[in-house]
Each structure stands twice: as structure tokens, then as C-alpha cells.
């Protein structure tokens, strides 16, 4: 059977180019969501925040300047087709090298410390990355770069609900998390929700939910309804752009789910700031 070969340089370059673009160019769907929210937002201060964000992405794009100074933790998703060979030794090293080159060439901020508790010394090149690697069928490799800011990540939460808490328990936890976050995660936010799986799978699902294109609903109509309802309820909280009060607290709610244990109903809420950056390539 024909097998495709990918070189280490191809991986490094692709990762580099993805981050260089992701950090400086706001995705089209997010830009469109800003434009639509301008029409809905009643608060003059809220509208002025959104207008600033629109001006900001124009400046970033034209000058290749980071959209936000927090150029994030370098999160990378790879879906690797089983018919693809790699000529290097280690994918993780190759991805880190791509990150290193992008953050250097792009004049991006290096925001990673080597040790969370004792040293807290900046690693100087924004590595290591967070790599989520999955084998899939086929002869293609999909790479997604998703730089994630610390401010919004800090406002995320996970809870192991009892199955008996049901839909009401899920809604209450999501609303509580968003309300507690207030203006901290730079609203308008995107809310990624993971439901089911184990503790770590659930957190992972909530992160994956943030990668879905805005406006695309979950394919299961029950989860799609829940996404719509939660978006409506979140926007009733009044938090508004930058927490200054307003109608637009969230641009979108995306849910991903997975089978789970008979004893469990984990729910994770991953909050994405208005600088909702991600970019993908298929090799």
C-alpha cells in the first residue's frame, strides 16, 4: 500500500506558519461574530469595546502584530493518518521547534515558565507546547495551532456531577462558571463545554469544543438545543464586553460529549477570550 512521507522540516515549518498566522490574524468566523454582535449590543460602552476589537484585528493583520500580548500557551492538535510516515525521531520535538521559530520570528511573547511552583523561570522560547496527538485512518495529517491565553484559561472549571443532577445541574454549573469569571476572561467569550468521559477526557472535550467554527451546532439536536439555550442564558447575565455591562457576554457555546461511567457525569467549561485564535493545515 502507498505510504506518504512527511519530513521533520515539513512539520516544523507547518507548525511555525500556523502560529505566525494564528497569533496575528483573527479567524473570519470570529470577525463576523463581532460584526453581528455590534448590532445586538445595547450598551454604548460594550459597543465601543467591540469596535476597538474590530480595529485591533485590522491593525494586527496589516502589521503582523500579535492580536493580544498574551500570545498564549502553544496548544497543538495533530490527527495523524495511519498511512503517513515521519522521517524524524520525535514529533513532539519537531512541533516544539516550530513553536520556537514562530515565537522568535513573530516577536511573540514567551509566556511559559519551566516549573509551576518552585522556579517559575521563563523557558525563553514558549516551549514546551501542549501536544494532543491522535492516530486516525487515512493518508493525511491535520495540524491545528491554538494559542491559548492565560487569563481565560484561569477562569475555566471542571466538576464531577452526579448523574441525578441531570440537565439542570449542567446548566447551573456552566452559568455559575461564566458568572464567576465576569469580566476577567475578556468577554465576549466563547464557551467550550465537555460533557462525559473521565475527568481528563472531559477537560479535553471542552478544549476541542473551542475549535469548532462559530455558528455550527452539535450534530445531535439535543446538544444543539442545549448550546442555544445556554448561549441565551449566559447573555442574560448582563456581564457584557469586558464585564462593563451589556447583552453580549458570549459569542457562542459549543458542546462536545462522550460516553461516560454509570456513576459519573463530568462537565468541563473551557473559556475562550475574545482573541479566539486557531488555524489549521492539512498535509
Amino acid at each position: 500500500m502507498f505510504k506518504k512521507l512527511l519530513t521533520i522540516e515539513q512539520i516544523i515549518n507547518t507548525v511555525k506558519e500556523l502560529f505566525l498566522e494564528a497569533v496575528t490574524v483573527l479567524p473570519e468566523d470570529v470577525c463576523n461574530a463581532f460584526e453581528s454582535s455590534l448590532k445586538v449590543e445595547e450598551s454604548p460602552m460594550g459597543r465601543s469595546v467591540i469596535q476597538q476589537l474590530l480595529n485591533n484585528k485590522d491593525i494586527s493583520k496589516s502589521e503582523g502584530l500579535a492580536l493580544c500580548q498574551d500570545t498564549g500557551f502553544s496548544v497543538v492538535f495533530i490527527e495523524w493518518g495511519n498511512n503517513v510516515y515521519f522521517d524524524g525521531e520525535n514529533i513532539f520535538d519537531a512541533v516544539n521547534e516550530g513553536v520556537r521559530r514562530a515565537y522568535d520570528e513573530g516577536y511573540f511573547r514567551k509566556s511559559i515558565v519551566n516549573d509551576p511552583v518552585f522556579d517559575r523561570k521563563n523557558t525563553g522560547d514558549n516551549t514546551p507546547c501542549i501536544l494532543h496527538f491522535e492516530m486516525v485512518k487515512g493518508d493525511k495529517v491535520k495540524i491545528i495551532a491554538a494559542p491559548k491565553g492565560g487569563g481565560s484559561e484561569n477562569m475555566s472549571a471542571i466538576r464531577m456531577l452526579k448523574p441525578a443532577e441531570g440537565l439542570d445541574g449542567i446548566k447551573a454549573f456552566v452559568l455559575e462558571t461564566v458568572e464567576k469569571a465576569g469580566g476577567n476572561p475578556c468577554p465576549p467569550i466563547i464557551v467550550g463545554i465537555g460533557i462525559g468521559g473521565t475527568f481528563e477526557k472531559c477537560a479535553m472535550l471542552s478544549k476541542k469544543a473551542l475549535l469548532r467554527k462559530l455558528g455550527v451546532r452539535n450534530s445531535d439536536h439535543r446538544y444543539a438545543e442545549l448550546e442555544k439555550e445556554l448561549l441565551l442564558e449566559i447573555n442574560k447575565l448582563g456581564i457584557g464586553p469586558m464585564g462593563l455591562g451589556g447583552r453580549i457576554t458570549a459569542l457562542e457555546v459549543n458542546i462536545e460529549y462522550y460516553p461516560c461511567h454509570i456513576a459519573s457525569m463530568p462537565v468541563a467549561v473551557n473559556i475562550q477570550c475574545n482573541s479566539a485564535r486557531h488555524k489549521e493545515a492539512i498535509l
Partner: protein
Amino acid sequence: MNKIITTPLTEELISSLNAGDIVHITGYIYTARDAAHKRLLELIKNNQPLPFDIQGAVIYYVGPTPPKPGKVIGSAGPTTSSRMDIYAPLMIEKGLKGMIGKGGRSAAVKEAIQKHKAIYFIATGGAGALLSKHIKSAEIVAYEDLGPEAIRRLYVENFPVIVANDIYGKDILEEGKKKYKISP
């Protein structure tokens, strides 16, 4: 209200500012975030001099991206202020008059703002490229080893912020939320 103000801030000026005012700041301000605050507090506790004059000073909670060649600074928007809540009351007591960041403040910070006549401004998070256009000069004052967290002295022109907490105890985040909240 739209107001243009200059730094350092005086108590007279601060008394004229109200939560919700749109303010444009011109003058020198200092950058400091988590790691720099930790060091500043050590100095204060040991009665040692600070690396800049804190009297009437404005601190901007920001860790900018590095400047591209020929530029003053990179992207430079606010970081979450609440992480500095633990340090802010003592800084205010020592003479700090203004803070620029994003998100709400603790009860202790709001109390210090009222008691010592200080002010808290919010800038738009996620607008770091836009905000950098208002920064005309930048120089490292201390803690170069902290990289993006070093203390920098910035000269800003018409830097756009909103008054979030004033000396009268008003809080624009609480008021704004109350105004737009739709109760079930």
C-alpha cells in the same frame, strides 16, 4: 464623560473622576504584573527604596510582546487585575494612585481606593495591537531578567481607558451587570 488626564495623578484630579468616565491618559506610566509585584512588595516590607517613584504613579498591568525592529513596543493590552489584588492595597498605601488592568477588584482593593484616594481603570483586553499605538516610548526600569514581566516606564498618549472603581465607592462592573441583567 470624556476626559483627558495627565500623569502623575493628583488627589484633586482623582476626585473629579467617576466610575464609567471614558478617560484618555497622557504621560509616564509603569508596567508591572505578577512577578514584579512580588519583588516590589519584598522591597516595601524590608523598607527598601522602590525602582521608581510611586507617589502619584500609575501602574499598568501588562506584559507586552517584544518590539519589532524600529518599533517602541509590541502588542500591549491589559492582564487580569485580580491577580494583583493581594499586592495592591499596600502599593496604594505607599502612594500608588492609578491602576490599569481588566476585570474586577477585591473588596480590600476597593476599600484602599476609597481610603487613600486612588483610581482603577479598565482597558480593553484583546486590543493589545490597538493600545500599543498609544505607547510612544518604553524603557526597562527594573527586573530585566523577568522578560515580559520586567518593569517598564512607558510614555503614553491619549491611552483609552474607562474608570471602573472611583473614590466614591462606585463600581462600573457591578453597575453595568445590574443594568443589563435579565432576571428569570
